[in-house]
């Protein structure tokens, strides 16, 4: 069965008791045992396992092409579990351009507990080799592609290969692309993490995360932590995420088409210093993105002339786009990385990475493309 079909059907069997096509939501915390210690269907306590969560995990696993999946209460809870499965003294080499929350987990939470962390200085392979070389006991390579917020494209095949040669596991944060546009496990990566809060559930109404592994064995430690630390998503939330997955393919097609149209309309526009979108020929990773992704995604970053002031003015003038955190929902959102998503990255590091004060990140929704283009143009003070 193809992706779109599996998105609708996997992890969702009709309810045997009633025939309900959409399975009921199992809010129950506990499960009746036919005899002590025995279960009817493998469930005994909802922190450890829940049918609605199992349905979601089966669907996510199938869509990502993996063998095992563990769902979490948030994207950062998923990231936390991956890092907690390491040990003091282990080394993590991470992307040069990373979501601020992941940076904070590495730098402020796990480094004090003994994890060694080294960041690549740019998107090049040798930058990653240097970062790995700086670690005493390299264990994990953590990348995002496209990156947040500069939308750099990293070579998953090459980086997974590099990790494997150094005896490291590779983790790809696939939140921006989603399994519809990009399947890192099929490109050689070991683990994929998602903030399913974003495109996966797609309706800005459920905070949640997931880890999917290439093989069952790779997920064992993380599955253990899911149960031991209980950072689980509730059953209603699992239901909502799975409900969103059903339209993932059609939503992503529209996000990509809208983002491409918007990005092209802004190239050379007055007040814009540069438009960053992997679908533009001008993007240095355009060819690589075309090889490793089915589409270029719904995220567009623009650098405005006039720095922070121009950004603030723009964000106050948009009417369809809303200035808010998060991304990946059906509604268009815009944000200012320097003061929002990447505020937790120290300013000197931010600037060194090119996250200037004039950068605005656009999460292009599935509204009418013409409406969105018109909204952005009027917010920039442009006519037409």
């Amino acid at each position, binding site marked *: 069965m193809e992706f779109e079909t599996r998105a609708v059907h996997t992890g969702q069997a009709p309810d045997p008791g009633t025939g309900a096509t959409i399975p009921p939501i199992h809010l129950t915390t506990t499960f009746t045992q036919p005899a002590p210690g025995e279960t009817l269907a493998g469930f005994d306590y909802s922190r450890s396992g829940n049918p609605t969560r199992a349905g979601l995990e089966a669907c996510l696993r199938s869509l990502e092409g993996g063998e095992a999946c563990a769902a979490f209460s948030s994207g950062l809870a998923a990231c*936390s579990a991956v890092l907690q499965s390491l040990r003091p003294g282990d080394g993590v080499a991470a992307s040069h351009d990373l979501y601020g929350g992941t940076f904070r987990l590495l730098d402020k939470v796990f480094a004090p507990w003994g994890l060694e962390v080294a960041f690549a200085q740019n998107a090049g392979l040798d930058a990653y080799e240097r970062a790995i070389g700086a670690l005493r006991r390299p264990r994990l390579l953590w990348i995002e592609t496209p990156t947040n917020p500069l939308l750099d494209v990293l070579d998953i095949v090459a980086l997974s290969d590099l990790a494997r040669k150094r005896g490291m596991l590779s983790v790809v944060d696939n939140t921006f692309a989603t399994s519809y546009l990009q399947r890192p496990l099929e490109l050689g990566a070991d683990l994929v993490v998602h903030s399913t809060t974003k495109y996966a559930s797609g309706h800005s109404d459920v*905070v949640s995360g997931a880890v999917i592994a290439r093989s069952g064995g790779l997920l064992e430690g993380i599955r253990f932590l899911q149960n031991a630390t209980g950072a689980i998503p509730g059953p209603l939330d699992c239901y909502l995420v799975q409900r969103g997955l059903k339209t993932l393919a059609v939503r992503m097609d529209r996000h990509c088409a809208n983002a491409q149209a918007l990005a092209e309309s802004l190239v050379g526009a007055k007040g814009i210093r540069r438009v960053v979108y992997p679908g533009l020929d001008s993007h240095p990773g355009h060819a690589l993105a075309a090889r490793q992704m089915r589409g270029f995604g719904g995220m567009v970053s623009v650098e405005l002339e006039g720095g922070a002031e121009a950004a603030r003015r723009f964000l106050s003038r948009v009417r369809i786009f809303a*200035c808010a955190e998060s991304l990946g929902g059906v509604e268009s959102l815009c944000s200012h990385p320097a003061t929002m998503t990447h505020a937790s990255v120290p300013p000197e590091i931010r600037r060194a990475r090119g996250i200037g004060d004039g950068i605005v990140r656009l999460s292009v929704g599935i509204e009418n493309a013409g409406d969105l283009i018109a909204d952005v143009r009027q917010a920039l003070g442009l006519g037409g």
Partner: protein
Amino acid sequence: MSDKKPSIETLAIHAGRSVDPFTGAVVAPIHLTTTFERAADGAYPRGFCYSRTENPNRGQLEACLAAIEGGKEAIAFSSGLAVAAAVFHGLKPGDHIIAPDDVYHGFRKLLDQVFGEWGIRTSYVDMEEPANIAGAVGPTTRLIWAETPSNPLLKITDLAAVAKIARGAGAVSVCDGTFATPVLQRPFEFGIDLVAHSTTKYISGHSDVVGGALIARESCPIFEHARKSQQLAGAVPSPFDCWLTLRGIETLPYRVRAQAESALRIATFLKGCPAVEAVYYPGLPGHPGHGIAQRQMSRFGGMLSFLVRGGAAEATRVAARVRVFTRATSLGGTHSLIEHRASIEGPETRTPANLLRLSIGLESTEDLIDDLARGLESLIT
């Protein structure tokens, strides 16, 4: 008119909530939204920015939990164990914890198999005797974790003594109040610093939402770190789950008292059964710690355990024959539950093989006693 603080029955219904100003809705709407609009000037005037860090329903739940516990502030988590993980994250490698030797097995696994690997050392002691706790204190002791009544032997720990020892050692004291609930036991009144709950149990009370909470008497570094952990490591409960938990809290005082009354009668009945070797219930005069329980609790709770004459096979047979009690793990809900603990606690368990644990629900006490009598009949042959 006096400024008397409202009683727990009133707080259970009103604390943390207010009428929705825009619609007049008495019951709070459920804010599933992940994100919140930012004002044109860049500020967040209503205080909400992203639901992992703060959400209206979670804020209401936290305010209510703090109020009914008599504490300053509460943090809600996705599960009871997520509370423990967040507390441990506030420590450092090399820090030492003192915990009960019969602490909940999931807690022990988290400490030994996760945080133990990251440099936390733990001493497990019999907390019925305060001298054991004092004896375990060392220069790196940072946390003393107590559970009272304990699981599944309902052991009672003297909270005032724990608080005193912790203060003397410069350590933080935590009481897992899951079994007792704030209705029956007020750890802050004995000087305890933090209270932890699996809200999955009595607090939500309907066996339909997994959750946890940490409440502070006053702010302290470990509590502040736990808040950061909730927000940055994201083990957050969903807005729907917070709403559902709050809905359960409204009847908490009445549920817990009814369950405690029923449990006392059932414990007394079991004590008189020839097929029963021993009964563990803090309300029975012969129970070790009964005197401390009388001082420390307003009633003795809805949990009890008993030893069946025989071994695991006999205990299993009793559990197989009951019809009103449900064979299932967990506790604190409206359904009465019966559980053979030893077979689910793992190979290292110290729980007797002939022990059955009961969580008394809200069914009629007569029906429950008849059901147990029927189960025990199977042993008299």
